[in-house]
């Protein structure tokens, strides 16, 4: 029998992740709802003493994959020209305020490929370890790391002012 009080404690984080993925509050809560129902119906599969948080995020991720197919994503996806593309209208310069930076970040996040966005959010927002993230997504840790690096670098480029964005590969990459 699963500890529902412990499960309740994870709900705010599950809602946050769902909101970040779907952007629509009611769709996000529907996803959390599906996740909870599934978790409760499969609670006999949860091994007490193992990582409840990772288990719930795993269920949520799998539900999301189905969910996204079924309902489609929120309509605010920003079209991109290519890998090194910039947001329409260009990114906002830092001195124009944090609010606009956040708006840019939000749009840049939407422009990431699904698999990179999941890793960026699970690690950067939900503070899951690389190992936990690998477990949730059912991929090797190395895949988590490469998706994370690619996703974050792409976010950074999307948010750069266009004139500064034409530089070559980042220095560190060349060191390897």
């Amino acid at each position, binding site marked *: 029998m699963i500890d529902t009080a412990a499960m309740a404690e994870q*709900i705010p984080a599950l809602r946050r992740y769902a909101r970040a993925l779907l952007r629509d509050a009611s769709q996000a809560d529907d996803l959390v709802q599906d996740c909870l129902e599934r978790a409760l119906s499969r609670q006999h599969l949860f091994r007490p003493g193992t990582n409840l948080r990772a288990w719930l995020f795993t269920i949520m991720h799998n539900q999301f994959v189905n969910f996204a197919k079924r309902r489609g994503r929120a309509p605010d996806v920003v079209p991109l020209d290519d890998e090194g593309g910039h947001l329409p209208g260009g990114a906002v310069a830092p001195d124009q305020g944090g609010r606009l930076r956040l708006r840019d970040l939000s749009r840049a996040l939407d422009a990431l490929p699904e698999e990179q966005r999941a890793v960026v959010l699970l690690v950067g927002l939900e503070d899951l370890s690389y190992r936990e993230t690998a477990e949730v997504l059912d991929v090797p840790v190395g895949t988590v790391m490469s998706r994370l690096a690619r996703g974050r670098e792409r976010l950074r480029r999307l948010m750069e002012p266009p004139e500064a964005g034409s530089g070559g590969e980042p220095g*560190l990459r060349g060191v390897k």
Partner: protein
Amino acid sequence: MSAARTLGEGDLHAYLDGELDAEGRAEVEAWLAGHPDASARLAGYRDHKAGLHALFDGVLDEPLPDSLRRTLAAGTRPAAVSPPGPPAWRRAAAAAVLLAAGGLGGWFGQRALAPETPPAAVTAPAAAFAQRAIGAHVVYAAEVRHPVEVGADEEKHLSAWLSKRLGRPLHAPALTEAGFRLVGGRLLPDGGAPAAQFMYENGDGQRVTVYLRQRFGTGTVAFRFAEHDGRRAFYWIDEPFACALIGDIDRDTLMKLSHLVYNAIENRTAKAGG
């Protein structure tokens, strides 16, 4: 890790995400010192991470929709053998409240027992708040050189500053009668809102922190207990603050300190409110 190994992109992210051991961190830091371009990129990644929290942490404080509450409540009694009455987790929560109230005597008892045990819509954000308070304790109570931003020698300034930022009159509760002296305090972000952390230390070098911010949500949360990685916390939400007391000390001492903290905040609020 060998010192001769070259660093890769992955090391930079692992450093940012706290995946490296002390040796690995030192290695990356040394490398960063000679590579300002990578340092700038790291700062950018760190900004994005903070930005994600700024964008989405507000969700943590939103009340739970009824549908989620019902799902969770239903999940606690799926089988025919379930006893009648409130779901198990609510009974457990109620028992925790009774325990806390009993331990503290009448001062908190009435407040704790008067309302129904609050629903998950109220308790889940409160539990998340307690987690953040414990997180802040873990990070700063371990600090040797910079445990606080403003030291106890500037207590007046500390109070004035934090009162201004939290938008409420606020003083560091006095815990000297329990053997804990004020070390100082700092300002922290809590889901997009300003929070204050006061740190205390006793003669054995044990530290406790008080973490508080303006209250959120609509309900009152009576005294609750949380434990995570050996850190214990009591927390509650009342007017005007959500407050948590965290320490690696035994539960009885922590409860006694909580009593002092609660009374200090109550008195201050009563005075300020007229």
